[in-house]
């Protein structure tokens, strides 16, 4: 029942604030009950906070080389030890958060900017437009896992711009698919019929009436997409195909200490643990959001 309330409000323009507010309150209630989602939100918030305030949280310059102190174990001076050039691991992890979120935000935004309209148009137009767009999406999805991103950075070279494009393009199909199915479920609803009768154009109906009602599944997808992109960026940087040294990137940090595993195994431990935690955070948050937006949750 509640799910119908929002589209109605969106169309008539009345009671919209109330509906959105009550939905937000409901969402907060569900998330407060879902401890895992709360934990996910906490991890992601810590990650975002670290990325924003990196210069204040770091204890050393992340680029400062100090060969005399190379491959040190954790100590009071270097909380998480040092890498093969004597750089402070903790400070590099802190600045690495900035790199990870920068790449993830750019790539997820690019994927959403292209994926949302493509999925929306496919779902709304149907017929040959739908099949043409979806065949393109199938073709992108034919490259399993990180293969497309690997192939693209192999051609275009590493660096920020190329990673935005490679990871953004790889995330288009999943976003497009989610939006398409959400649009399909909305387009036969009464408020769309009503908007048609008042003479609204297809463009207005799709982008201003239907799309705002597809936000819930999209938010879940975008949260999971952040996790995918952060993992993919670290993988590419680990392979030496992503960001160039001396950028503080978690994947690159792991690549750089790999030859020294025998001398200082701890050096590889913390960057990987950070990646795992951030991905766990986004996954838990995504699962939690899914629970929130599942209408069955409201009735409990």
């Amino acid at each position, binding site marked *: 029942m509640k799910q119908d309330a929002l589209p109605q409000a969106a169309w008539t323009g009345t009671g919209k604030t109330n509906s959105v507010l009550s939905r937000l309150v409901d969402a907060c209630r569900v998330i407060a009950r879902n401890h895992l989602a709360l934990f996910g939100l906490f991890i992601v918030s810590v990650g975002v906070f670290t990325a924003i305030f990196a210069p204040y949280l770091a204890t050393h310059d992340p680029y400062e080389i100090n060969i005399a102190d190379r491959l040190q174990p954790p100590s009071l001076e270097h909380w998480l030890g040092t890498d093969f050039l004597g750089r402070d691991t903790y400070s590099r992890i802190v600045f690495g958060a900035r790199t990870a979120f920068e790449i993830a935000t750019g790539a997820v935004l690019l994927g959403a900017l292209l994926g949302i309209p493509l999925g929306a148009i496919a779902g709304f137009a149907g017929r040959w437009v739908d099949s043409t767009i979806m*065949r393109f999406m199938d073709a992108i999805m034919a*490259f*399993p896992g990180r293969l497309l991103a690997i192939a693209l950075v192999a051609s275009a*070279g590493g660096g920020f711009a190329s990673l935005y494009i490679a990871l953004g393009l790889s995330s288009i199909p999943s976003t497009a698919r989610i939006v398409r199915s959400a649009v399909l479920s909305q387009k036969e609803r009464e408020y769309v019929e009503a908007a048609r009768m008042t003479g609204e154009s297809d463009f207005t109906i799709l982008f201003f009436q239907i799309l705002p009602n597809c936000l819930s599944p999209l938010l879940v997808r975008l949260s999971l997409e952040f996790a995918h992109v952060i993992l993919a960026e670290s993988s590419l940087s680990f392979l030496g195909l992503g960001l160039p040294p001396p950028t503080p990137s978690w994947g690159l940090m792991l690549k750089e200490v790999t030859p020294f595993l025998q001398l200082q195994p701890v050096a590889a431990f913390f960057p990987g643990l950070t990646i795992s935690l951030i991905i766990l955070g986004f996954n838990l948050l995504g699962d939690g959001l899914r629970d929130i937006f599942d209408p069955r949750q409201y009735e409990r």
Partner: protein
Amino acid sequence: MLGSYVVRRLLQLIPVLILVSLAVFLLVRVIPGDPVLVMLGIDPDERGRISEEQYRVVQHQLGLDRPIYVQYLNWADKIIHGDFGLSLASRRPIFEIIFERYPATLYLTATALFVGLIIAIPAGVIAAIRQNTRLDYAAMGFALWGVAMPDFWFALMLIVLFSVKLGWFPSIGYTSPFESPVLFLQHAFLPAIVMGTELAAPLTRYVRAEMLEQLKQDYVRTAWAKGLPSRMVIVKHALRNSLIAAVTVVGLQTARLLGGATIIETVFSWPGVGRLLIDGIYARDYPIVQGAVLLIAVTYVFINLIVDLFYKWLDPRIKLE
């Protein structure tokens, strides 16, 4: 009915395969710089290494002086006939090199699949029948952590523990299972654990959810009521039906492993197609990169199709659309 569905699915694959091949063909074209120099493996600033006449000959030989759609059609025609061109580094046919490497990838994937199944099925079943107990939480914790953990980091941690500290397993190398099964298992153990965990983490969650669903069904209740022993109810009834649904997840994950073993093969120096691809990228051997990417993508598409058809055949209740 299944026959016409198979035909329809095969027809749907044609545009996808054309687009995939087009994307792979264009890969070399989007590389900044001159494609002739790229295909020769020469840096743009070393252009002087070849004369203008040599340049034109190579350009003609590679067909790069023709319109781009003609180049694509010629390339696609060769690919269909199994001619992937020559490797820039070794001057050997790419088709030959890739199929030399393919068995290593297959053996590793098969071992990882085995590891994944022996972890996920018992873990999922135990978690379901002991729902909301410590065992359940442990299994779900493993599943959540397994999905979040980067595979290459897990690989490094295993190397530190089992190769560096304990010295139980080698961290690099490969022996064919037909040459020496024991040596093969020694080398495959660590990479198979990493890839198996990658498969087991989502599968455990899936098996658990399916088992919980099945255990609630009337036929299970009837089986309990009849007084059948627990093992029989769980294994013969509930698990069997849960696994039918799990086939899709196993199939898709296996296809992903087969195609996505690039990093793990690189970390463990496993001589499969994934490592061939990465080595090709490092060496700027673009024909190898094209061949490996195309082969991995096409394998993935076909495994997806087979999984889909197998699932439909296995469970006749699934509607053929």
